[in-house]
């Protein structure tokens, strides 16, 4: 056992860090650090800078632009990017649609979509949740009826992140109403400019516009935009669920936020002293710091296992559970540190981060997964 990074890993970290220092635009870093709104253009700009460097899709095969990094290198890259305040790389194209196409797509589909995903030409979003099906995804009702060379799609998706930026959306739709629940579902790629699509904002409680409802009214989708066979959509969805669960802990981002919290608490006064020196508040920070330290090691431990060819079990879901709990606690302590001043932005961020334990498979669903898959309960 050796918990120090190898010299090669250290060198890699230095390379990433140095490159970020040179290439992460100051305005983007500033926006991320202050939790300012990121416009579509901000997200795409950073995507393209990374694409130009060849680092935008580390997990893809080399022939499609992957980097060939091992899991620990990918972790280091993620951690440094998060710590540096780089904008997030949205997963919908790079980590969801891309891997699905690589696994299930035709050559034609790969050639058509992968380069544009890689280059950031298309902004993708995910059409999974529906009003009646959240955790119980397989109960979805949006239907696609085959009519000649097209599917005609009718129905509604909801909680669709950044659909108002979207050029394309991948959707789970029901192609066979008679089949059993998980069967009869197909996976379609839909151009958001197709007539019949309406995007309606869902405003969150912090006043922000991130998510949307997407309505499909007789939307015609060419059959060649279906990925995998008709009725195989659930297989695709399960593949996605098992994919890319190793980098959900957001260690780098939380480390940066923890430093911000400490700096901020050092400027706030309580009983004439810095809040950071207050035993009660300091202990809350310490416990959070310990939890983050532990999660970093846990994450690396799982990655090391993966690198050794032994994929860890469903307990990796704990990276999502604990990672989001840490992120939420960070926003909460930041709000608490501000106290009764008028820093509404910090309070809004606390509100906004309540979503993290709900989205991407709620923390309750993650616990179910561990209980069932890993513990055999």
């Amino acid at each position: 056992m050796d918990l120090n990074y190898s010299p090669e890993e250290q060198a890699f970290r230095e390379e990433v860090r140095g490159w970020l220092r040179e290439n992460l635009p100051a305005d983007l870093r500033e926006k991320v650090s202050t939790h300012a709104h990121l416009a579509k253009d901000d997200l795409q700009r950073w995507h393209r800078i990374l694409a130009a460097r060849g680092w935008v899709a580390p997990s893809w095969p080399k022939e499609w632009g992957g980097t060939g990094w091992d899991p620990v290198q990918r972790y280091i890259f993620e951690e440094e990017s998060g710590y540096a305040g780089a904008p997030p790389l949205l997963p919908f194209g790079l980590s969801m649609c891309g891997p699905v196409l690589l696994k299930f797509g035709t050559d034609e589909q790969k050639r058509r979509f992968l380069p544009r995903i890689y280059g950031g030409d298309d902004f993708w979003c995910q059409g999974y949740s529906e009003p009646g099906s959240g955790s119980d995804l397989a109960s979805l009702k949006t239907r696609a009826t085959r009519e000649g060379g097209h599917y005609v799609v009718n129905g509604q998706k909801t909680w669709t992140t950044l659909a108002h930026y979207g050029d394309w959306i991948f959707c789970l739709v029901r192609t066979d109403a008679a089949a059993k629940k998980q069967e009869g579902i197909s996976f379609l790629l839909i151009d958001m400019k197709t007539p019949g699509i309406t995007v309606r904002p869902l405003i969150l409680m912090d006043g922000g516009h991130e998510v949307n409802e997407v309505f499909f009214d007789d939307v015609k989708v060419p059959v060649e935009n279906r990925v995998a066979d008709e009725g195989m959509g659930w297989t695709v969805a399960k593949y996605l669920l098992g994919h890319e669960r190793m980098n959900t802990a957001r260690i780098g981002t939380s480390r940066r936020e923890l430093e911000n919290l400490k700096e901020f608490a050092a400027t706030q006064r309580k009983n004439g002293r810095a809040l950071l020196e207050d035993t009660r508040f300091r202990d809350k920070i310490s416990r959070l710091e310990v939890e983050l330290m532990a999660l970093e090691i846990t994450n690396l431990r799982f990655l090391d296992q993966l690198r050794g060819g032994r994929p860890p079990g469903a307990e990796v879901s704990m990276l999502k559970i604990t990672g989001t709990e840490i992120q939420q606690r960070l926003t909460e302590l930041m709000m608490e540190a501000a106290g009764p001043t008028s820093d509404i932005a910090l309070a809004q961020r606390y509100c906004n981060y309540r979503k993290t334990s709900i989205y991407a498979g709620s923390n309750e669903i993650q616990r179910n997964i561990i209980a069932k898959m890993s513990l055999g309960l």
Partner: protein
Amino acid sequence: MKFDYNEEQRLLSDSVRRFVAQDYGFEARRAIVASKEGMSATVWSTLAELGLLGLPFSSDDGGFGGGAVDLMGVMEAMGEGLVVEPYLSTLMASRCVAAAGTDEQKQRILPGVIDGSIRMAFAQGEKDARFDLDHVQARATRAKEGFALEGEKLAVVHAPVADFLVVSARSGGKGISLFLVDAKSAGITLRSYRTLDEMPAADISFRNVPCTLVGTEGEALPIIEAVVDFATALVCAEAVGALKYANDATLEYLKTRKQFGVPIGAFQALQHRMVDMVISYEQAKSMASLACAKIDSAKDAAERKRVVSAAKIRIADACRHVSQESVQLHGGMGMSEELKVSHTFRRLTAIAQQFGDADHHLERLARG
């Protein structure tokens, strides 16, 4: 030992609850919050007509002589309805006048408060003060008539809609005093905004603002403490109403939202969490009752402070617990601005800190 409200208390809280149900529904409230002023003059008149503004004043001052217990049911109903009008702010400021003001000040203020023509705000907080009531840097100096006020006050809730302010400040090396200020006076600058829980508020700058002394110079701290304790007990009662709404809405959601073919309330993990929310509510309710009772009957300030701090600790914990769980158990819907529960989340989050977070009151308990 009697926990039920008496006839008058019940009638009063029922009337507020009825008013909220009829005229302060979620959509009506949204319109009020979206309005320029961020409150409704019509609602304010109604509150006055219902007698709520006269309730806590003595009959000598034109009121009905009610105590904190008499206000409990009213505050619970306001908490359920998420009322944003400056009720508590006005009570705090006007109680300072009632407690220590001259007859002339009382005449100028109290009848207007009681009939709804005067709204007030209590300008107490400052930079670096956090929740300490004795951290006051604002200064008042004697002027030709009365005093002149200099300084900054932060996060004064309802200042943008107030006609008069009561302001804490130091004067003549004599400790902390209270001053009555006409909000339209020259020299007052407001940086207005809305709080997390959608109340109009402002940071205020005072530059040579004419004002009059309320009470004895330099001896205002006990009055401020009493008024803030009074308001803390009431906001605990308000929290009980908001907690009740959050629990009711969550329980309803658990019963109606179906996943995997059953209501999600069929899942035992969610059942047990809902039960823990109910326990938090019951414990918070008990402490709110105790705090209001002690506001009216404590034998001295030490006992009052001890019980109010104990109550605020339990209420802060309940606010955090119930608000977070109510959103979580609502799933994505709990995050949506379109559901009342997300607004209740914001009010509960604010109450947890209002008049001191749990840490502040733990410190006060430990010192007591």
